[in-house]
Every structure is written in C-alpha cells, then in structure tokens.
C-alpha cells in the first residue's frame, strides 16, 4: 500500500474521517487567559478531563481514555525529567508540544498499519504577564494551533477544543467578542461557561452558521448544570509557590455562577 501513493492518501483520508467521527461527541473544553492566570473549564459526568502536567502547564483532552493516558504520561514524564535534570524554568510547553508530542502523533497517524492516537489535546502554560500565556491545541495528526498571532489573525487570549470543527469555530467567535484578557476570575468563569454551552449546543444542533441567542445559551447552560458537574482548573499567574496548578471543585465554582 505504501508503494502506491494514491491508496496511501485514500487510507489517510479514511483514517481522518474515522477519527473525526470518534472524537465528534467530545465535550468542549475552554481555556481562557485572565488577569490572574489561565482558566480551564468543561462540564462532564464521568471521567476527569483536565490534568496537571507541570508547575505551570495544564492539559485538557478529549478522545479515547487509553490514548489520552499514554500522551498525558509522556508529557508528564518529559516535563519531569527536564525539570529534574535542568530546572523548572527550562520546562517549556512550546518545546514539549513541537519537539516531542507533535512528531510522534504525526507518525502514528500516518503509519497506516499502526494505530493512531484517538485524542485531541489543549495545553496551556501560564506566563508572568497575560501576553506571555501560551495556549496550544494539539490534534490527533500532530497539527498544532496556538493562540499566538498568525498571518490570518491577531493574538488571542483563549483557545478551545471540541468534537467538531464547527463547534470550535463558534466558540472562538463567541470568545473573540465576549472575552477580555484582563478580566476578573468571575468574568472568565462566566465567559468559559457560555462558550462551553455554545460548543455543546453546536455538537447537537449540527448546521448553524449563527451564534445562538443569549437566552438560548443561558437556558442550555442551566439544563446542563442540572445534570453535569463543572470541572475546572486554574494556573495561577502570581502564586508564591512553584506549583501553579490548582483544580477547582464543582461546589466552589457554583458559588460564582449562582446569580
């Protein structure tokens, strides 16, 4: 098959279609930079989706739990050995994603006889200032999308991950207008929750090109909060300890959104 370029391309396309189908029902995750750090937020019923990778790095993922676990372990292992042999300051998300994760995921995806990674990941590294925050989305094929400026658009202070491309686009469109990088924690929680609701609605609704109205978002959000728990984590920008990751309990968060 490898000797026949056409069939290889076909195999890759089939594989892509299969993986996209597997990832499609994944609950969205939003990562928002705010004044005092970076907030990760999602809603879910069952398994944990947000993880601590290193002192200033967090990860959120959707996909097959076994693949997420392997990638999470690899990321922690790489960051820990780097932090141990050099120093914590030498552990960088940019290097971790670009030099280690992306090449491995790409080759797993393209070697059509082996299994690909069924996972999509969102990483964030909190910086000393909001403009130093780095947020990356790493796809199952090793593709990396970052929040930094590209030719097509200005730098963003957020990144999202969801089951479908359309859901991602709508969440981004919402956050582009509704999220301010220097906002408070409360404002970030609200924006993230609304972005999640939009992403989740889009997973179910299918083809819409317009953002749902404010009332529809609130309604959907309330319905979902009744059946699912909020999972969230913060990377503190100004913490006194070296470990900046802190997971937030459902109860703690509900006190912010009661009104």
């Amino acid at each position, binding site marked *: 098959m490898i000797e026949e370029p056409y069939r290889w391309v076909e195999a890759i396309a089939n594989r892509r279609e299969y993986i996209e189908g597997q990832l499609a029902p994944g609950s969205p995750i939003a990562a928002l930079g705010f004044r005092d750090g970076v907030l990760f937020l999602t809603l879910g019923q069952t398994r*944990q989706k947000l*993880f*601590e*990778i*290193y002192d200033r790095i967090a990860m959120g993922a959707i996909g097959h739990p076994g693949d997420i676990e*392997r990638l999470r*372990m*690899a990321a*922690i*292992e*790489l960051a*820990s*050995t*780097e*932090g*141990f*042999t050099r120093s914590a300051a030498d552990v960088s998300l940019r*290097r971790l994603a670009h*030099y*280690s*994760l992306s090449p*491995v995921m790409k080759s797993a995806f393209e070697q059509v006889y082996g299994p690909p990674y069924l996972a999509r990941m969102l990483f964030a590294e909190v910086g000393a200032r909001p403009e130093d925050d780095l947020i990356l989305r790493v796809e199952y094929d090793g593709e990396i999308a970052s929040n930094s400026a590209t030719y097509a658009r200005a730098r963003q202070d957020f990144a999202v991950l969801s089951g479908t491309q359309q859901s991602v686009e709508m969440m981004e469109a919402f956050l582009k207008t509704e999220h301010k990088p220097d906002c408070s924690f409360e404002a970030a929680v609200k924006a993230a929750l609304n972005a999640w609701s939009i992403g989740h609605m889009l997973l179910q609704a299918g083809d819409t090109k317009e953002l749902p109205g404010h009332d529809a978002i609130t309604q959907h959000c309330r319905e979902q909060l009744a059946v699912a728990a909020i999972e969230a984590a913060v990377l503190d920008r100004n913490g006194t*300890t070296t*470990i900046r990751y802190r997971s937030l309990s459902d109860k703690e968060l509900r006190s912010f959104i009661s009104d």
Partner: protein
Amino acid sequence: MDRPQLGFDQDFSGAAGDFPSLLRRKGLLDSAVAGQMPQNTMQPKAWQPTEATTILAFKFSGGVLVAGDRRATAGNTVVYDRADKVLEIDRHSIMAIAGVPATAWEMARVLEHSLQYFRRTQLQEMSIDGKVRALSKLLRDNFGFVMQGVGVVVPIFATYDGNSKPEARLYFYDAMGAQFEATDYAATGSGSPAVRGILYYEHNWGAKPLHKLKEDEAVSLALRALDTAAESDTATAGVDRSGKIFPVIKIVSRAGINTLPDSKIAAVFKEMVA
C-alpha cells in the same frame, strides 16, 4: 544537542508512578549501589560521623517547627555560612538534612520530584506513609556510599496532614534508612546531643510542654537551642551576631509551609535570646 531526554517512550506506562526508576531508565540517576559494594582493600575505618551541623524539629501549638543552622564544613574548615539545610519538599512537607551536602541536596531534589511526579501521574497525593517510605528508600539506596565513607545523610522529615491523626507528623532517620516517628521532637547532626538535652528538659520541666508553646516561644527556644549547640560544636554556626546570619526556620501547618523572614527571627532573637 542531547535529544534523547525528549525522546518519547510509547511503551512505558507510568502506572507505578516511581520517579527514581524513571530516572534510572533514562540514565539520569545512578543505580542503587547496594549489593555491588567495592571490595575495598583499606582497613574498615572507625565510624566517623560526618554529619556536621545541627538540625532540630519539634511540634508546637502551631504545627511543626523545623530549624537548622547555616554552616557547611569540610573537616575543620568552614566552607559556607549561608547554607540552607531545611528544604521544602512539597506544600506540606519539609526535609531537613545533616550530612554530606552534595548527596543530601540531590536526595531532596529526587524526593521532591518523586512526590510531584506521583501526584501528577496518579492523580492523588501520596500518603504520609508513602512519603516517609520514599525517603527511607533513597537512604537505603545510598547506603553503599555511606559504607565507603562518603555521602552519609541523616535527615528529619516533617509533614502535616489534616486527615491523619495526629495531624502534625515528625520522623527522623538513621543513615541506613530506618525511620522513627517522633512524638514531640527530633534532632540530628553533630550538635544534636546538646539540643536533645535542651528539648527534653524544656518539654518535661520547662514553663510548658513543647506542644503548648506559642509561635514566638517556639522560635526563641529553637534559637536558644541552636546557639547552645554552637557553643560546643564547631560545625554548628548558631546565630552569627556580627554577620546577622540567622538560622533557617520553617513552620509547617495546615495552611502549608511558612518560612520565617530574617526580620521576624531577628526581632525574636533581640527580645528573647540575645
């Protein structure tokens, strides 16, 4: 450029959460030397304790206080007068070391990373017993060096867990890795006999037992004890009055670890010790 470190081992499952074995697998940590002791032709030397320092720890009303002087020595030479021998391992654990600094600091680094690696990979905090054992294992692995006369480390480990009973926990070790839980106080290093005497006396016949002391009283007791140790032990600095170098004092409590600033120690020193 050494890329292997960034290598991505797909077959590895971190399920055991054991950081030292990960380091060994990557060739970043020497394997345990026990069992391959060099057949040294030298006469077995008389045991020479080289843990030249004074470390003390005791439980008081506000948690566990751990204090250490700041002198590092080689033989009868003072090498360094600002050494920090009271090290934070995680949010609620302190390891204080007497012994060879190179080995001790490396051990503290391995332990610190081990606990974090465990928490991150296993998604739960390591239990107190697990932490205590982890340090014991590092000491055990180091015992080959101890037998060769280099690298002896005798630490104290203090930790606080709101869910355990008692909440404040204090352990001391011997060079082979045996762990002993202290109910009230522990001391290690060459100046420890004097300190142990003081703490025993204070606890039994002092104004009040150690666990009833308030923070200022606890700090002044620690300073007095270290100064007493320094009086007869040249390897212990106590309080350097001319250089304004104060011992390192850390307190671990439910809220986490509090490193007392020099200004605070200086104030207590001036009022209650000097």
